[in-house]
């Protein structure tokens, strides 16, 4: 809403038209849900109709033959791991960059800012070689390290922006009480950063769960067992696509994200726009 004086014309047709447009827009998703409970022949015959035979066979298949439970747990663990590492390292760094005098402060700020623009291809191959040299190629650890490092510039940027809302007086009084800088940070500043931390958890939870490309490149398809890399395997059978399985897979794997989205929609959008308006 933008100010008290704004009168709006009621456009009922607009509401209905946009609602229909919106539903049409997400129709591929609706189609996936609808078709995930049909048998394969029925999908080919009548993709848009309600199922004649309602069946959960595809879902059963996913959890028994494909064993989708394991990748889901792995992806979830990866999210938790990455988010924890980010929260442990980024806010501290943002604090030291914004609030503390450091000889290298300016240089580090520029360095992190530059990181926001680097495309993945530039570091893709040297990074793989680096992991190979360290003996951790194709491991979960490598992917975790990558996700954390890759997310640091943006994460620090987000925290830095938020940091300016915290009054300096708090630090001064903490110092007067004899608190060292590190203690000051964790006991006083960090709790105040909680809204920011929540945003970080939501966004990185989404990104890491959804990630395909980086998991694919860093872990490959044979050794890694992560949710969307597994789903990619479904695509590789080029001749006979098991649509019912594919749809069931899509629905199951998007379920956590969808639930999160429905619960947190406002937060998502607020977090996005807060960052972008800077």
């Amino acid at each position: 809403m933008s100010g008290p004086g704004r009168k709006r014309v009621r456009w009922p047709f607009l509401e209905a038209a946009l609602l229909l447009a919106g539903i049409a827009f997400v129709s591929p998703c609706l189609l996936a849900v609808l078709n995930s409970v049909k048998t394969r022949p029925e999908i080919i015959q009548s993709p848009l109709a309600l199922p004649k035979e309602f069946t959960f066979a595809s879902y059963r298949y996913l959890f028994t033959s494909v064993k989708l439970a394991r990748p889901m747990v792995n992806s979830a663990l990866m999210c938790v791991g990455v988010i924890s590492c980010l929260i442990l390292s980024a806010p501290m760094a943002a604090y030291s960059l914004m609030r503390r005098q450091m000889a290298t402060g300016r240089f580090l700020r520029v360095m992190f800012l530059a990181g926001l623009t680097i495309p993945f291809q530039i570091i893709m191959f040297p990074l793989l070689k680096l992991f190979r040299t360290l003996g951790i190629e194709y491991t979960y650890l490598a992917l975790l390290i990558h996700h954390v490092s890759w997310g640091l510039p943006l994460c620090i940027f987000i925290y830095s922006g938020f940091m300016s809302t915290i009054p300096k007086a708090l630090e001064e009084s903490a110092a007067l009480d004899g608190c060292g800088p590190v203690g000051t940070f964790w006991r006083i500043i960090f709790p105040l950063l909680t809204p920011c931390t929540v945003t970080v958890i939501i966004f990185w939870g989404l990104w890491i769960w959804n990630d395909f490309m980086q998991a694919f490149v860093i872990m490959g398809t044979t050794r890694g067992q992560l949710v969307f890399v597994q789903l990619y395997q479904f695509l590789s059978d080029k001749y006979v696509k098991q649509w019912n399985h594919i749809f069931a897979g899509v629905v199951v794997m998007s379920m956590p994200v969808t639930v999160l989205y429905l619960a947190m929609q406002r937060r998502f959008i607020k977090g996005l726009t807060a960052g972008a308006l800077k």
Partner: protein
Amino acid sequence: MRSGLKGGASGGRLRGATASLILCGPAVALYGGFIVLPALLGFAYSLTDWTGWTGTPDFIGLANFRELCSDTLFFKSVRFTLFETAMIVVFFTFFSMALAVLLDKLRVWKGLIRGLFFYPYVLSIIVSALLFTYLANYREGAVNLLLRALHLDMLAQDWMADRALAPYFIFTLVAWSGLGFFTTLYLANLQTIPGELYEAARIDGAGPLSVFSRIQFPMLLPTVTTNSVLALITGINLFPQIVVTTQGGPGFDTFTIGYYIYHLGYQKDRLGYAAAVSFMTFAALVAVAAVQVAVLRRRQVSL
């Protein structure tokens, strides 16, 4: 004032430089070691003939860059990437704006409808790609089945593998996934327009089109800059979308620069050359983005 506030170790409490080190150490170490270092190594590798993961890179100076100048597949990739990027930038800059303006007018179902348009953005690229692969499938996909059911058989195409259609397929996929994001940025910008402006326009009897062109559009220019740059970056970095759908096909028709680099590394093992290509692309992208921002900022200010 106590001394020791500003720095230097005292009384066992960590102060000054040590504290700063602890605070930003982990982040700097991770970022420096796993982002900055590979980036620098990438540049170094571009000056070598590194092939294969176990090969030894030998210094060959600028030979890779010279080769790049006559690499037809590279130029094909560049042309395709630019074509896609142009469509993407235009779409995300203007269509999202139109949608945002319309969404902003809603009263009853605003949250719901906005949520519908935003939803595809939260889906993984693989999910979107699978959905679109299904829709586009020639024999079994929903689009063609629907066309045939409506007795419009001749309109049925192989949307993904046809030479003429593949680029538009990719574009549609990107547009579908990204629309919600760019529209949301415009919506946020629209919220900052003061209500008094609308009130004044209403008093003056201005119709919706005037309101848009005189009030809304000029005030949306900051987001035009942001969105067009983000769209540019999205277009230039088109790569996962290609991997999960066309794989560069049919033939080499949907090779983007990003996919070409991937192809060089994974299918041709030419890692030194791939590094050279990625470095050139990055440099070009920075240059173009800088120009774009400069031009748009100037327009922003003058209006």
